[in-house]
C-alpha cells in the first residue's frame, strides 16, 4: 500500500526531470538582506522568509500575485465554526529521506511560540488554539473563535522535520541547532550546505523536490546590502542576479546591453497618515501660535490635502517612473480592493477653496515626518509632498529621518502628519485594514498600528463582522465596503504604489517578479 503511494509522485518527478533542461550550473544571487537565522520560525522579516523558502516549504503557498495556492497542504475547508481541516500533500520527503506527514505540521505549529524571536512569528499561528492529527495526511486546526483567514496566516508557516528539530526547539538551542545544519532539514527545493550571519548562504539542489527539479545544481546567496556594490558585483560577473536595483541605476541600466532589468509591481504603498487626536503636537498657525483645534480633524482639510497631491508627477519625476498612482491601501486585484474608489484628482485650486471653507484660508504650518532609508524613494516622496502642500498654503517642514528613530517615535504617538510604506503581504484586506483602520482595541486585537486615533464605528463593525464570515464572497464584499469608507474619510491618504527592479546578466535567466519582492531561486529558470 505504502509503496504504491510513492510510485505515482516519483514517476511524475522522474518524467519532469527528463523533460526539463537540467543544467549543471550554479546560480549566484546578490541580495540586499539575508536571514537572521537558519531557523525559519525565528523571524517574520521578509528577507528571512525569502531565504527560508529555499530550504523549507510553507503549508499554504503565496503565489506571484500573493493570492493563496496549495503548498504542502493541497486543500482546506472549514469543518465547523472554529475548526479548519487541511489535507496534506502525499509523497513529499524531507531532505534526510523521512516522510512529511501531519506530525511535522503539528510540531511546527507548536514550536513557533516557543522559539520566535523579537519579530514574533507567533502572528502566523495566533488564532490556533489546538492541533489535532486525524491521519498522516489530514489535520484539524482548532481556532479561538471564527478564523476566516486562517489559510492566509499560514503562507509563512514553514514546516520543519519533527524528528530533526526535536532537540532544537527552545530559545537557547534553536539557533545553534539550525545554524549548524543539524535541524535544517526541510522539504524545499534546496538543501542547506552552509551559512554565516550576514554571510553567504550556500545551497545544493534537492533532486526529489515535489514541484520538480530546479534549474540550478548549486545556489549561493550573497548578502550585499550596499546598492552600488551589489550592482558592481553584477556588472563584474560575480553574481548572476540581484534584487532591489535603485531607480537611479535603473535609468542607467536601460542603456546597458549586458544587463537585463526586470521590473515588477510591489505590494508596498506609501500612505500619508493624518493625526485625528484633539490635540496634535506638530501643527500650528503660521505665526507659531497654537491653533484652537486640530485642523486635520476637519474632513475638508483632509480632502484639501488629498487634492494637493499630484500623484502622476510623483511617479514620473520623483520615482523616475518606477511606480503607479494609488487610490487605496492595497494594490488593485487584491482580496478587498475596491474598484469603486475613484483616483483622487489633483486640483490645487479646489484644495485652497476647501481650506478656506474650513476656516484656514491663511493656511497653517505642519511638520511632516517619514523614513529616509526604508523603501526606495520614501524621503524623496516626502520632499515632494512638502512642496505640494506648501503650494496650497500648508507650510510643511519635511523631516526624512532614519527608520531607527522614526518607528519608535511613531509608536509613542509623537507625530501629527507622517508617511510610511505599508505592504499587504498576505494579499488580503484584514491584514491592512485590521491593523491600521480599526480603532486601537487590544480586546479584539485590532488596530495595533492605528497611530492616528482614527475611529469610524461603521468601519470597526464591518471589520469585526468580516473577520467572522466564513464565506469568501461575503467577506470580500464586506472588506471592499470597509476600504471604501476608510479611503473616503481621508485620514489615510494613499499616494503611490512602488515598483521593484531586479537585475540579471542579459539573456541568462528568466523569472516573473513577485509582489512581495521575494527572489526565489527555484522560480528563476535558466534561459539557455
Amino acid at each position, binding site marked *: 500500500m505504502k509503496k504504491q503511494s510513492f510510485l505515482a509522485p516519483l514517476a511524475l518527478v522522474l518524467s519532469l526531470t527528463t523533460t526539463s533542461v537540467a543544467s549543471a550550473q550554479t546560480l549566484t544571487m546578490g541580495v540586499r538582506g539575508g536571514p537572521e537565522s537558519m531557523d525559519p520560525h525565528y523571524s517574520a522579516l521578509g528577507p528571512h522568509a525569502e531565504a527560508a523558502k529555499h530550504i523549507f516549504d510553507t503549508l499554504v503557498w503565496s503565489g506571484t500575485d500573493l493570492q493563496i495556492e496549495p503548498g504542502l497542504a493541497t486543500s482546506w475547508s472549514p469543518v465547523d465554526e472554529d475548526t479548519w481541516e487541511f489535507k496534506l500533500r502525499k509523497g513529499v520527503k524531507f531532505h534526510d529521506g523521512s516522510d512529511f506527514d501531519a506530525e511535522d505540521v503539528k510540531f511546527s505549529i507548536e514550536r513557533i511560540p516557543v522559539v520566535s524571536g523579537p519579530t514574533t512569528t507567533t502572528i502566523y499561528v495566533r488564532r490556533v488554539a489546538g492541533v489535532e492529527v486525524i491521519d498522516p495526511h489530514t489535520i484539524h486546526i482548532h481556532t479561538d473563535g471564527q478564523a476566516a483567514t486562517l489559510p492566509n496566516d499560514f503562507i509563512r508557516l514553514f514546516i520543519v522535520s519533527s524528528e530533526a528539530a526535536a532537540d532544537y526547539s527552545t530559545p537557547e538551542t534553536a539557533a545553534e541547532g539550525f545554524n549548524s545544519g543539524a535541524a535544517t532539514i526541510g522539504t524545499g527545493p534546496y538543501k542547506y550546505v552552509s551559512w554565516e550571519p550576514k554571510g553567504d548562504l550556500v545551497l545544493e539542489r534537492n533532486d526529489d523536490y515535489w514541484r520538480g527539479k530546479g534549474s540550478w545544481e548549486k545556489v549561493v546567496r*550573497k548578502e550585499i546590502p550596499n546598492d552600488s556594490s551589489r550592482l558592481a558585483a553584477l556588472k563584474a560577473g560575480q553574481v548572476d542576479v540581484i534584487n532591489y536595483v535603485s531607480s537611479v541605476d535603473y535609468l542607467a541600466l536601460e542603456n546597458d546591453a549586458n544587463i537585463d532589468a526586470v521590473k515588477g509591481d510591489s505590494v508596498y504603498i506609501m500612505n500619508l497618515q493624518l493625526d485625528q487626536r484633539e490635540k496634535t503636537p506638530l501643527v500650528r498657525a503660521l505665526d507659531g501660535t497654537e491653533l484652537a483645534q486640530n485642523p486635520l480633524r476637519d474632513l475638508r482639510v483632509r480632502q484639501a490635502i488629498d487634492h494637493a497631491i499630484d500623484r502622476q508627477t510623483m511617479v514620473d519625476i520623483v520615482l523616475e517612473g518606477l511606480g503607479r498612482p494609488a487610490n487605496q491601501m492595497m494594490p488593485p486585484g487584491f482580496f478587498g480592493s475596491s474598484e469603486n474608489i475613484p483616483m483622487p484628482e489633483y486640483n490645487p485650486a479646489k484644495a485652497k477653496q476647501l481650506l478656506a471653507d474650513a476656516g484656514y484660508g491663511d493656511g497653517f504650518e505642519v511638520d511632516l515626518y517619514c523614513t529616509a532609508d526604508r523603501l526606495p524613494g520614501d524621503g524623496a516622496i516626502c520632499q515632494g509632498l512638502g512642496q505640494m502642500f506648501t503650494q496650497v498654503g500648508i507650510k510643511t517642514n519635511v523631516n526624512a529621518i532614519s527608520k531607527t528613530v522614526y518607528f519608535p517615535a511613531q509608536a509613542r504617538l509623537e507625530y501629527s502628519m507622517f508617511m510610511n510604506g505599508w505592504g499587504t503581504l498576505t494579499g488580503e484586506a484584514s491584514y491592512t485594514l485590521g491593523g491600521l483602520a480599526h480603532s486601537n482595541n487590544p480586546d479584539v486585537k485590532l488596530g495595533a498600528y492605528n497611530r492616528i486615533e482614527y475611529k469610524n464605528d461603521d468601519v470597526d463593525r464591518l471589520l469585526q463582522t468580516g473577520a467572522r464570515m466564513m464565506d469568501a464572497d461575503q467577506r470580500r464584499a464586506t472588506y471592499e465596503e470597509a476600504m471604501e469608507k476608510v479611503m473616503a474619510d481621508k485620514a489615510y491618504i494613499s499616494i503611490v504604489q512602488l515598483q521593484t527592479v531586479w537585475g540579471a546578466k542579459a539573456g541568462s535567466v528568466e523569472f516573473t517578479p513577485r509582489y512581495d519582492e521575494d527572489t526565489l531561486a527555484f522560480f528563476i529558470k535558466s534561459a539557455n
Partner: protein
Amino acid sequence: MLGFIIQRFLQAIGVMAVMSLIVFCGVYAIGNPIDIVIPPEATQDLRAEVIRRLGLDRPLYEQYFIFLVNLLKGDLGRSFVYNIPVLELIGGRLPATLELVLISVVSASIIGVSLGIYAGYRPESWTAKTIMAASVLGFSVPSFWVGLILILTFAVNLGWLPAGGRGATIDIWGVAWSFPTLDGLSHIILPAINLALFKLAMMIRLARAGTREIMLTDTIKFARAAGLSEITILRQHLLKLISIPIITVFGLELGSTLAFAVVTETIFSWPGVGKLIIDSIAVLDRPVMVAYLILVAFLFVTINFVIDLIFALIDPRVRRGAAS
C-alpha cells in the same frame, strides 16, 4: 611598573563602565528596539509579550543591573536579532577585520613613513613634491567614493580583481584566515588600498614634518661630522627621533580602523565587525552594541598602554622619568 599596570587596568574598567552606561541610556532614549523589527501583523498582546520576554519593559536601572550581573558571570548576552551569543557573533567576524586592517595599516605605515622620510630628506626634489601633492588627495577624497572607483576600474572594467567579498580561507589554529591563499589576497587588495589611503597620507606628512625638523638639528650635524653614512644616520638617529608622534598616530589609527572600518567593509561587502556594529545600531540591537563598544574601549586602552611601553623602550628619557 606594577603600579603603572594596575592604574591602567583600573582606567580600562572605568572607561568600559562609562561606555556601557552611555549605550544603555542612548538606546533607551531612542526607543524600543521592538518597534523597528516587529512585523505589521503583530497584535498588541504579541508586542507586549515580546517586550516582556526581552526584558525591555523593566525600568532602565533594572535592565542595567541584570546586564552587570550577567557580565560578571561572563555572559555578554545574546543578540536581539540573531539570538546567537554576542561574543560568538563578534568573534566569528573578527578575523576578517583583523587581517584586512593589519595588512592595510602596517603596509600604509611602512610605505608612508619611507616616502615621508624621503620627502623630508630631499624636499626640493621633484619626487618629493609629487609625493606631497598625492598625499593631499589621500586626505581629501572620501573613502566610499574611492572604493567605488576602485571597484569600477579594477573589477568591472578591467576584471582583474573581484568586486567584493572575502576569498577562500584556510584554517590556522581553528580560525579561518584568507590572506594565505592567492584567492584571498586578490580579495584583500582593493579594500586594503581603500583603507590605507588616509593613513598613508597621514604617515607621509608626519614623517616628512619630523624629518624636516630633525635634519636641521645639531644631532644630525654632529653625526655627519663624525663620519657616519647617510643611511646609518637615517636609520639610527632620525628614525628614533621622529618615531614618537608616528607611533602615537599609528596606535590611534590602528585602534580606530579596527573598530570602525565601516565604510570600506560596506562597499566591499567585507564580512567584518565594522559592518556588524553599524547594522546593530540601525536596528537597536542593544546587546551587540554594548558588548562591541565595551570591547572597543578596552582595545583603545590596551593600545595606548602598549604605546606607552614602547615609548619607554625607545626613549631613555621616558624610562628614566618613570623610574625617578
